[in-house]
């Protein structure tokens, strides 16, 4: 597989949300949910995007899908800027960037049969009609491990794992180049999670998809990703290849995240409470380094200045005052 050619490149993406719609719908204050995020997703490669709730990781995903209109920055898909596209231009690339969501039930329309759900992207774009749709759907179902007898059932007749397979089939039927996986296994039980992770992995092997894998689960991201970006409060605090990151986590937040995830190892008990406080809400973003109120190695500068992104190794960037740019 020729890994490497960039499929999606995000540069300095910004997304704001209105906090309170003021009187008679006037926009009130804004919160910056995503602040100058840059990402690169290559063909055949999985980029893991890790963060706690409210870190803005799904917002990044939704901007790439253009479910949200970015407020700044560029999103290049095969060299074309998605962020600048109007509605009609967008139609031409619809289907080439696909998505699988967290909740396998609510991401399938309960009123549609599997055949319609999976064949849907084809019907919408009117590329294919009639019997051919059924053929393609069937082929896709086989690919994700389902069969012909599933064709005329409704989503609620399936188990969680099967639903997630259906979600995969729907995403794959348009032969996309990039697939955004938004916590695709966090609603599943461990045994099923394993099945789906394997499927995701196999499909990439076979078709060379570029994945953006969004999750809060370090173990999963470690298993599936090639490269990992860690988000905190709308900001990418550290990014590196998987091995680099796990061997040498630099940002205090990354380290805390790794330390507080319970490991299935009763012989080595961890100190779980490594990070005090709650993840702050994006409505009240602290000044300076956004992480400083919870940081164990906080310095004076952290309270005043936002740290710049620093490249500390070939494939390792971090935004922390501990690593001054020189």
């Amino acid at each position, binding site marked *: 597989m020729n890994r490497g050619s960039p499929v999606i490149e995000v540069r300095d993406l910004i997304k704001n949300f209105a906090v309170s719609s003021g009187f008679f*719908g006037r926009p009130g204050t804004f919160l910056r949910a995503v602040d100058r995020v840059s990402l690169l997703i290559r063909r055949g490669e999985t980029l893991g995007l890790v963060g706690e709730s409210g870190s803005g990781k799904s917002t990044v995903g*939704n901007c790439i*899908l253009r*479910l949200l209109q970015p407020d700044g920055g560029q999103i290049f898909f095969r060299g074309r800027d998605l962020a600048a596209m109007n509605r009609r231009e967008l*139609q031409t690339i*619809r*289907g080439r*960037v*696909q*998505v699988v*969501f*967290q*909740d396998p039930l*609510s*991401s*399938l*329309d*309960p*009123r*549609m*049969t599997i055949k319609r*759900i999976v064949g*849907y*992207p084809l019907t*919408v*774009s009117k590329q294919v009609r009639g019997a051919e749709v059924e053929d393609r759907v069937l082929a896709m179902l086989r690919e994700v491990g389902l069969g012909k007898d599933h064709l*005329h*059932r*409704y989503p*609620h007749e399936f188990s969680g794992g099967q639903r997630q397979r259906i*979600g995969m089939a*729907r*995403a794959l039927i*348009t032969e996309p180049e990039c697939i955004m996986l938004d916590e695709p296994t966090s609603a599943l039980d461990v045994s099923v999670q394993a099945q789906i992770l394997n499927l995701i992995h196999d499909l990439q092997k076979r078709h060379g998809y570029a994945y953006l894998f969004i999750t809060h689960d370090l173990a999963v991201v470690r298993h599936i990703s090639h490269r990992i970006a860690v988000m905190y409060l709308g900001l990418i605090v550290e990014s590196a290849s998987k091995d680099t990151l796990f061997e040498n986590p630099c940002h205090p937040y990354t380290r805390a995240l790794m330390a507080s995830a319970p490991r299935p190892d009763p012989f080595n008990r961890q100190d779980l409470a490594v990070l005090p406080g709650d993840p702050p809400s994006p409505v009240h973003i602290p000044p300076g380094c956004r992480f400083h109120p919870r940081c164990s190695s906080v310095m004076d500068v952290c309270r005043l200045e936002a740290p710049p992104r620093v490249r500390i190794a070939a494939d390792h960037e971090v935004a922390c005052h501990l690593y001054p740019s020189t």
Partner: protein
Amino acid sequence: MDAAFTSRHPRLRELLLTLKILSRNPSAVAGALIIGIMAFMGFSADLLAPFDPIRINLSERLNPPGWGHLFGTDEMGRDILSRVMHGARISLRIGFMVVAAAGMTGSFIGAAAGFLGGRIDNLIMRVMDVVLSFPPLVLAMALAAAMGPSLNNAIMAVAFVMVPKFARIVRGEALAVKEMPYIAAARVSGAKNFWIIFNHILPNCMNSVVVLATLTLGETILIAASLSFIGLGAQPPAPEWGAMISVGRKFVMDQWWYATFPGLFILFTVIGFNILGDALRDVLDPRIRR
């Protein structure tokens, strides 16, 4: 499981399953039975009714209930039983027409408002608020008075009044459905707004609409009868129940049967729709279903 429930036709299978669950619900069965009887009576009134509901027979005026006339006769000597049987047809027709008209318009308006959001939503909902600022009967009355008393005008008036009900409930659902990931998935696949409204939003609001429609049918029959009672609905000699009570009211002190029987028919028909609606609400509720 019966063969039907494993049928290859998914819609039929779902329908049969729903019916099966409904058939285990005693109030659903009772409701459906009442409506069924009323509908049967209405549709075959021409065959079943012992007398002509319109033709007057002045020598038989105001006879009390007896073997000749089970429900007695009215001031024109018409058989009240025959008239209430024909009345079933009128009331059900009003109910279904109103609900069909209001349900379709309201659902579409609500789905569009909820899904499109923003200014359109604001505008539509403000207009709906205005309509909702009137008690239904009061507005229907004003409208029916304005358009002139006739059955068709009453139907239009009641339909107009009922639209916001559907709009509001569908809008609420649409707002919820809109946030569902499958809508995002549809967008990602390139679906346009109206496609999404018709293929996702509306079908997913159907359960609520069906329940509301059933309950509204009952309410419509009541309001329409009320309008007829005030003299703004069906016109004589049409055997509409409300209109019959309106005339029967003059005779109620001495000829109790005149107003009593049409009222009982309204009562039971509306009960039928109400308990069926309640049962449907229980059965169609996805939380119970799945």
